[in-house]
């Protein structure tokens, strides 16, 4: 149940997938709206929250990677070869983006010379020297990575929905929380 099996993702992998999905999307939208803060102090507090959520994503990503290394994913779904390659490419890029978004934020924060405090609990060091000239570039990299993530998500979500609605198979179900596989016998006999 906790671990993946041949047919479906285990509870731990599902937890990582959906928690990271919610946090990174919510935090991305939150990040785009930071300028709506009604006062400098509110923006400071929103920023601190945005950074803390981003660091949480990064920590979850590291744990997810470790978990995956010790726990093989389910078998790839039977599909044309190009679709399997496309799926691998999209998954690979998504993994990279899940790491790159918080890391680019950390980089931006560092060149800006801001402190980095995790939910007011402890501070983390910068990962680059303060450098006002890189401030704008770092901010744009951070923001455009999120737009790129949304673009890749169109492919990821689109493919999942195509499998679910058009093909009526278990590709989405095997990652969906608490879902039963529709065609359980298909895998059992394999």
């Amino acid at each position, binding site marked *: 149940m906790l671990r993946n099996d041949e047919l479906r993702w285990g509870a731990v992998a599902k937890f990582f997938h959906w928690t990271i999905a919610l946090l990174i999307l919510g935090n991305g939208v939150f990040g785009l709206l930071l300028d709506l803060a009604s006062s400098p*102090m509110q923006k400071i507090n929103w920023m*601190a929250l945005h950074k803390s959520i981003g660091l949480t994503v990064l920590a979850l990503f590291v744990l997810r990677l470790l978990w995956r290394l010790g726990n093989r994913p389910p078998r790839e779904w039977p599909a044309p070869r190009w679709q399997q390659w496309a799926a691998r490419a999209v998954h690979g890029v998504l993994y990279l983006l899940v790491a790159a978004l918080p890391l680019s934020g950390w980089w931006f924060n560092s060149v800006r*010379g*801001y*402190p980095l405090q995790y939910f007011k609990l402890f*501070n983390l060091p910068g990962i680059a020297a303060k450098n006002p000239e890189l401030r704008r570039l770092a901010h744009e990299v951070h923001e455009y990575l999120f737009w790129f993530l949304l673009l890749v998500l169109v492919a990821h979500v689109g493919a999942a929905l195509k499998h679910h609605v058009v093909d009526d198979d278990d590709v989405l179900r095997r990652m969906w929380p608490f879902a039963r596989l529709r065609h359980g016998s298909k895998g059992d006999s394999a």
Partner: protein
Amino acid sequence: MTRLALGRLAPLLLCLALPVAASATDYRVLQDQSTLGFAATFQGAPFQGSFAQWHAAIRFDPAHLADARFDVSVDTTSADTGDADRDGALPGADFFNATKYPQAHYVTSDFTRLDDARVIAHGTLTLRDETHPLDLTVTFTPQPGGTALMDVAGTLKRLDYGVGGGEYADTSVIGNDVTVNAHLVLAPK
């Protein structure tokens, strides 16, 4: 008659004797070698600031503490913390309110000896429209040739003075404790 003359002369004699008996030295501060600053915390990270414009009248002698006196004025528009946003905010109404209160003022009342090397200066700091007692630890190091080094440090609560009130009063974001420090290079006047 002799007694009467002595009685009249006594205050005069005392006046003549005083400068000799308690002669702390009046120093001038070598501004280009001296610093006056502070340290505070923002989001759990310390930051340092310094003032570019200030004036300190220092009269001091560790052997004649009764005659010692500091009188320091600081231009509150001149803070530099190495961050443009912060330096822009500090003179504003929420912090130093420098338009209304362009000067901070520290003056000593008396001094006590802490140990062989250190002395405590007791005094009051006026910042914005607040005046509160502030003790400073003073380390005085005479140098060859009559000059001296003086290192001064003390801690105040920024909210006592209303620095960063309102929204900025949240001490989990901006720490309440602020360390003030000075390194003075002194030459006798």
